[in-house]
């Protein structure tokens, strides 16, 4: 957070950035950061509920969870992990370039991030199609021939809930990043002010964080 409202930085500050109820830009940035982290905390707790449900049923059905996990496409899950990690890097770089007054490089990094996000969703679509084809589906729709032990349907309920909610977050993150790309192309972000971009980046990193836990817990039991 290098955006203290000093004389030099203030000159390049776009109009309408500093709200009248903040005494300085640094205080506004601090408040924005805190607000975003409070939101991220609620997101963490939202996913924690699903991870808790997962823990309960994995504890009760260890064989079923292991058997179902080995029928997921490990290679696709691994590639998706690499894709998301790299997209986190490109988001971090876009913020770095924005605060280095290189908006074009920042925009390129955001476009790369969006492409990685699309790749992730595409791979997830391939996986979901296979599940629908082999009927490894949640609850009463479960009719997977290869795993017929108690708890298998529960694994796929949790699998779809967790990856589905995560996928929704990927879509939401893509919308936020697209908007930020538009703002970056307009030249809104520079060394004087880049907090908006930084907060969007935080959201994307959270999406990555959730997947870091989903990957070993779903694909590598």
């Amino acid at each position, binding site marked *: *957070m*290098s955006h*203290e409202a*000093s004389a030099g*930085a203030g000159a390049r500050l776009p109009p309408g950035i500093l709200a009248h109820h903040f005494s300085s830009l*640094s*205080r*506004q940035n*601090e*408040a924005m*950061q*805190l607000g975003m*982290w*409070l939101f*991220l*905390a609620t997101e*963490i*707790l939202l996913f*924690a*509920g699903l*991870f*808790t449900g997962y*823990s*309960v049923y994995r*504890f*009760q*059905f*260890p*064989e079923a969870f*292991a058997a179902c996990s080995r029928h997921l496409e*490990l290679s696709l899950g*691994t590639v998706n*992990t*690499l894709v998301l*990690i*790299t997209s*986190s*890097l490109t*988001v*971090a*770089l876009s913020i*770095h370039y924005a605060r*280095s007054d290189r908006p074009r490089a920042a925009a390129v990094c955001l476009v790369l991030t969006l492409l990685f996000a699309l790749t992730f969703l595409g791979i997830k679509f391939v996986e979901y199609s296979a599940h629908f084809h082999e009927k490894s589906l949640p609850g009463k729709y479960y009719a997977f021939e290869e795993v017929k*032990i*108690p*708890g298998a349907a529960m694994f796929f309920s949790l699998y779809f809930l967790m990856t589905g909610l995560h996928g929704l977050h990927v879509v939401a993150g893509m919308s936020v990043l697209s908007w930020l790309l538009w703002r970056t192309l307009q030249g809104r972000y520079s*060394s004087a002010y880049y907090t908006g971009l*930084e907060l969007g*980046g*935080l959201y994307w*990193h959270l999406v*990555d*964080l959730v997947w*870091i*836990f989903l*990957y*070993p*817990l779903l694909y*590598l*039991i």
Partner: protein
Amino acid sequence: MSESGPSGRPTRALHLEDQHGAHAHSAIPYFLVWVALLFFTALTYLTGKQHLGTWALALALTIACTKSLLVALIFMHLKDSSGTTRLVFATSLVFVALLLLFTVADVATRFRPATPAGAPFGTERSQPEGLLEHEVPE
């Protein structure tokens, strides 16, 4: 919220100015973290594929926590964030730990009739002692 963050923290403001003055942020840490994340992903993949048994879950979670810490500290700039922000993040983790700990502790200490049908775990061991076999409902 505008008051809770920066109120009464003059040292923090000085620290921010120092950072701005130095202007020494480079992209190298991000690439280093990225390489570390790739390494840890490979480690998860290679150890996870072998199904190591008892310690597999602990190892996988340790690696995942390490990766998350790297993302949070470097990518999400928690390393340079204010104490208030860190407190929010740490508090959420405390509540996640409470939720997981007590729920798993509950499930782990149940006796057979309280577990779902077909659950193989926690049957004999957690069966209460005074209960005869024919008294336990299937």
